[in-house]
C-alpha cells in the first residue's frame, strides 16, 4: 500500500485533535456548571 502511514498519521491528528478538543470543552463546561451550582447554593444559604 502506498503511503498508508502518512494517511494514517493525518487521520490520527485530525480525529485525535477533534476528540481531545471536544473532551476538554465538555470537562471545562462541567466544572463551570459545578462551580455555578455551588456558588448559587452558598448565596442562597447566606440569604
Amino acid at each position: 500500500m502506498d503511503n498508508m502511514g502518512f494517511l494514517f498519521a493525518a487521520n490520527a491528528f485530525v480525529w485525535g485533535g477533534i476528540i481531545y478538543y471536544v473532551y476538554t470543552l465538555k470537562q471545562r463546561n462541567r466544572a463551570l456548571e459545578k462551580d455555578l451550582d455551588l456558588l448559587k447554593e452558598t448565596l442562597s444559604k447566606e440569604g
Partner: protein
Amino acid sequence: MMNPDEVEEKQEEGNILVWLTGSAWLAAIIGIFIYAPTERTEGLIQRIMYFHIPCAWLSFFAFFVVFICSILFLWKKDREWDIYAHASAEIGVIFCSLVLITGPIWARPIWGAWWVWDSRLTSTLILWIIYVAYLMLRAQSDAGSMRARYAAVLGIVGFLDIPLIHFSVLWWRSFHPQPKVITSEGIGKGMDPSMLATLGVSLCAFTLLYFLLMGERVRQEKLKDEIDRLKREKLYSS
C-alpha cells in the same frame, strides 16, 4: 435566565444537531474510505484532501465569523458579539493548526519536503500566528471592554490575510496546487464527480461540527459570565 421550556427546547435543538453532525460524519467517512476512487498519480495519500480542505474551510469560516462579530461588537458594544468572536477564534485556531499539520504530512511524499516557504503555506502560517496572538491577548490582559476592543481590532485585521491566502496560488508561483473546487471554468469542473460529492459531504460534516462546537464554547463563556456576576453581587452585598 431561561425558563424550563426554553431550556428543553434548546436541548432538543442541540440533540438534533448532534444527530445531524454524527450522520454527516458517518457519510463522510464512508465516502472518503469506500466511495471515492483512488487518485491515479498520488494514490492513497490524496485522500488527505477530504480532511485538509474542510479543515481549511472551517478555519476560514470561523475567522470570518470573528471578523463579522468583531465589527458588530465595536459598533453595538454588546458583550454577546464578543463572546461569539472569542469562541469562533478558538475553533478557528484548532482547525488552522490541523491544516498546518495535515498539509506537511501530505506534502512529504508528494513534494519530498515537509515544508517549503511557499506563498500559500507562509500566508496560512501567518494567519495562524495572528489568531494565536488574538487568543493570547484575551488570555493575558484583564477582562473588560478594553481587552475586548483590542481583540476585536486584531480579529478584523487578521481576517485580511484570508483573501491573500486564497489568491496567493494565482498571483505568485507556488508549490501548492491551484484551486480545484472553484475554478474559472465553474464549480467542481476540475474534479471527478464522486470525489467532488465526497468532498461536499465532508465539508458539510465539518460545518455542522463547527456549529456544535460553537454552541458548547459559547455556553462556556456564558457560564463564566454568570459566575463573575454572582461573585460581584456577593462582593457588593457583603
